[in-house]
């Protein structure tokens, strides 16, 4: 049944730190690699060596610019995969029950055996988190690496999504949002983690940490720190140095 569980025991998901993501696409490719070899059908590529190569990816990194009037523009790299919404419209629209949200941890999955490839769930997802695999004809989406996070064949430290494990900048965090003490809950609270398109009421589990304020030194109204000269010409400065040095007691470090 494609109805959503009224609540889930855990709320597993990701925190993505937009202040730290350098846009390297490591998460994109490691996701592709893991999910090609694991859960369900491989993520196929059409015209891989030709014109317009187009493949299935479960995670993609956009680049945006944000510019406030009169300030310098900022670049924000923006990774996006399934947000494992609590109120996932992609699940309820599915005619076959292939799409479902797991009761135990809230992961939204597609059971590929049941999927007829109608695409409606992708239509229902506001975020573009679902892609219909052109080779296999089934819907693909981020599995939150359900075949890693509980995988007893992996060492404990590695039971984390492939994209999180690989992110060189440490901009991706995985954890249980139902637990207020989890790393993800804390980061969300401390850094003002936000929802994407909250107006749609999808209640995404994944949270985005906004970039910290930038370019404070461009704001000329703020009195910038400023160094007081000790001397304006060479002689004076050399004299000053001489004084400083002669004040130095034998082996202590000076504070200048």
């Amino acid at each position, binding site marked *: 049944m494609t109805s959503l569980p009224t609540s889930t025991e855990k709320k597993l998901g990701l925190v993505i730190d937009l*202040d730290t993501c350098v846009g390297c696409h490591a998460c994109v490719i490691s996701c592709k690699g893991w999910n090609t070899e694991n859960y369900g059908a491989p993520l196929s590529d059409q015209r891989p*060596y030709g014109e317009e190569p187009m493949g299935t990816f479960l995670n993609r990194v956009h680049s945006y*610019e944000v510019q406030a009037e009169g300030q310098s523009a900022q670049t924000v790299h923006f990774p996006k995969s399934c947000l494992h919404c609590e109120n996932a419209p992609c699940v309820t629209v599915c005619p076959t029950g292939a799409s479902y949200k797991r009761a135990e941890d809230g992961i939204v999955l597609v059971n590929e055996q049941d999927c007829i490839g109608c695409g409606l769930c992708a239509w229902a997802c506001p975020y573009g988190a679902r892609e219909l695999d052109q080779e296999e004809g089934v819907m693909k989406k981020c599995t939150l690496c359900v075949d890693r996070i509980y995988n007893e064949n992996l060492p404990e430290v590695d039971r984390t999504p492939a994209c999180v494990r690989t992110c*060189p900048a440490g901009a991706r965090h995985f954890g249980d949002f139902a637990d207020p003490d989890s790393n993800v809950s804390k980061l969300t609270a401390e850094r003002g983690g936000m929802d994407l398109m909250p107006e749609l009421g999808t209640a995404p589990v994944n949270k985005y940490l906004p970039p910290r304020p930038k370019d404070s030194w461009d704001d000329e109204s703020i009195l910038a*720190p400023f*160094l007081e000269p000790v001397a304006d010409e060479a002689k004076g*400065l050399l004299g000053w140095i001489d004084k400083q040095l002669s004040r130095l007691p034998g082996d202590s470090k000076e504070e200048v």
Partner: protein
Amino acid sequence: MNFKQPKINTSPPVSDEIRKTTCYMCACRCGINVHMKDGKVAYIEGNRDHPVNQGVLCAKGSAGIMQVNAPSRLKKPLKRVGPRGSGEFVEISWEEAMSTAVGWLTELHETAPHKLAFFTGRDQSQSFTSFWAQNFGTPNYAAHGGFCSVNMAAGGIYTMGGAFWEFGQPDWDHTKLFMLFGVAEDHDSNPIKMGIGKIKARGAKVIGVNPVRSGYNAVADEWVGITPGTDGLFILALVHELLKAGKIDLTYLAQYTNAPALIDPNTGLLLRDDDDKVLVIDSTTGKLTPFDQKDVRPNLAASFRKAGTSYTTVMAHMIEKYLDPQYAPEAVAERCGIPAQKIKTIAAELARVAFEEAFELDQEWTDFRGETHKTMTGRPVSMHAMRGISAHSNGFQTCRALHILQIILGTVEVPGGFRFKPPYPKPLEAHPTPHGHGRPGRALDGPHLGFPRGPEDLQIEDDGTPKRIDKAFSWEHPMSAHGMMHMVISNAYAQDPYKIDTLFMYMANMSWNSSMNSKGVMEMLSARDDDGKYRIPRIIYSDAYSSEMVAYADLILPDTTYLERHDCISLLDRPICEADGAADAIRWPVIEPDRDVRGFQSVLIELASRVGLKGFMKEDGTPKWKDYADYIVNHERKPGIGPLSGFRGENGDQTGRGDVNPNQMDAYIENGGFHVHHVPDEARYYKPWNKAYQEWAVDLGLYDAPQPYLFQLYSEPMRKFQRAAEGHGDRQPPEHLRERIRTTMDPLPIWYEPLEDGQIDTNEYPIHALTQRPMAMYHSWGSQNAWLRQLHGHNPLYLPTKLWQEHGFENGDWAKVSSAHGTITVPVEHQAALNENTVWTWNAIGKRKGAWALEDNAPETKKGFLLNHLIHELLPPKGDGLRWSNSDPITGQAAWFDLRVKIEKVDAPAEAQPAFPPIDSPVEKGPSKLAWKVGK
């Protein structure tokens, strides 16, 4: 709801086996776990135990699986049958390939070794390839450092015995202010990202100095969108501010640098004693003393009079120079494109963090003078820089200026500052000088590349003509420590300084993205003399893939991919060390090649033995090594020191020095493909002056004896060249270079306008044009990778808002971009976070039709383009009949980023211009779809 969720297996087996080796999707050399299923590569992830990447992996690394299955892989040796550049080849046997090469090489070795030019590109076995070339006896060997980033390397080594790049790294754990100059990616790809992530997590500040705000600069808290080529000026303005305010680390300058050294006003050289030790005035005694004596307190402000000559300190000279109003923030602001106020704020913030947030690490250490310090003083300001400052013709001096900035703040090799990675620091004195006297049938006396100390080390004939085909270490570029690969083809074609016979290249796409003036290079490679013979008579090339360069060679020696061969990332070369440990690594064949290809190093070994190069033969005339793996384990550079430092000695229990261990390779494989030897706690900082470090380094075999040294704020080698230009000494520069050497080789860093600016009309070409490396692509290799090429299948030219609006561009528009040298027509896009006089594009995305097993209509060939067509290896002629290389006058570093252009909106052509006819592909084209899964 009573919906029965499907039961899924959350613990599927991940793989049959993990084989640990070293990534080579780029030169960062991370450790990888290669998951195997049914003997095939199923998945690649980072190795958590590895010192470089600690488990993380970049996009390229994860896409390695698509590289080892790429249809572009060469399959068999090839012999050219069509004209050069046509791509027409026939496959031949290895025996035929080897005997052809042996025939050509033997003749040259025995008669005229200098007629072989052996140049390598993205190679990581330079200690081996240079050993080969040395034994061959040709002076004409170098790797790609000259066009890559020699300014960075040389600027660092001449100044402080090591550079940024892969020589060192910020103290990520302690730094509070990190300033990054001109870096898009760098070789330390993953470590820099990990470091930035670390300091961001701590809430420390990042300042990004870069005309373009992307990647690392996107996450920078403060962005300094500097005008290209002006960093030197900006840095010296910071120096000016800091000096003026006395915000400098006087103790550090006095103890660890040559700031207190005394300059002889007559020669400009430093006052030394009979043992050639630099002399200082001791503040306590007021006496002239060698700098390294116990208890000496060098006086920065001293002066000394002898026989009517007044000697003053380097510090005094620096103050004199940098307090000059030409370096005031107000004076440089416009030129740099940075408001004076912002420069002052940055200076103030550097000073605040360095001095007010200073901290002590509770760690005792003893300096080289024998004094023990209870703690280590931390100055949590760190810096890093790369090609954005080095790939300009004023880059060497700019790199030096940046080191001066760090040094006056006392932030090098201190907690929270910049730290060297073993085998660095390594003073200039510990580096070789260049050698280039080739003689038939004999090996060279020493290594080709090195660091000249003065005119005496130049590689020139008595009449001043360069000894080397690339003219490195000649008066044109006296300190070209890495050679000048970008000049080889051009000079060989011009037969200047002489004619060569065989060009032997390895892993460098010289007919395309790694050359300036790519079209010209293609023409030079295929140019014929009047007699119809090729002007460069023979070209041998080793590549693993069907690159653009393949089409221009006569003989192709197909290499393996990185998962199919042995490799060695050695302490003798460019190791994988981190600041806290010396580390080296191997690659080993985790899969066997499914084609008739051979590891290139093994091929070189066979060539050497068949040609009969001495260093490769035993006394009895049989080969010393059967292949590269054998060499890696059994070669000794000096007794007890070989390519790998770990698991030495018969039992494999020695590190650094030790006898050959026949099981060393297995020990490395067992250990995950690498070996780390940690720096002891008391040796972790102050390495150039730290007794414990020096002793540790000697133990490990990095040095033969402790060699503490002073940072060279004032560079004597430069002064020696400058002095020659002033007419002193018997080796004199030619007249046309005299003035240039005199002005550019200032022993204290200066800024001068990039050379191209002086030679073109900057009103006509007002715009700076740059390239950046995409994080997910390694030069030209990524395009053959089914996954990566979807990320960057073509590249727009990004235009800042000002130019975008000025020209009325809209989405989907194209522009004609012209430099003094050429014209390209390319798609444009808008980027607001960009210096307003700068345009840029991703590097090496454009591809030639027919290469890389791509379809002819691949976006890389139709919309992708190279900026290289606009950049020439020579500056526009001055009308003096001379060829002026587009390089740093000091080091020969290719000045990629000096490029100036103009832009014009044009109708979209059918494809990016210039377009070239397709080359025949020596391999079959790839499949039309891919659903790769090796396991069931």
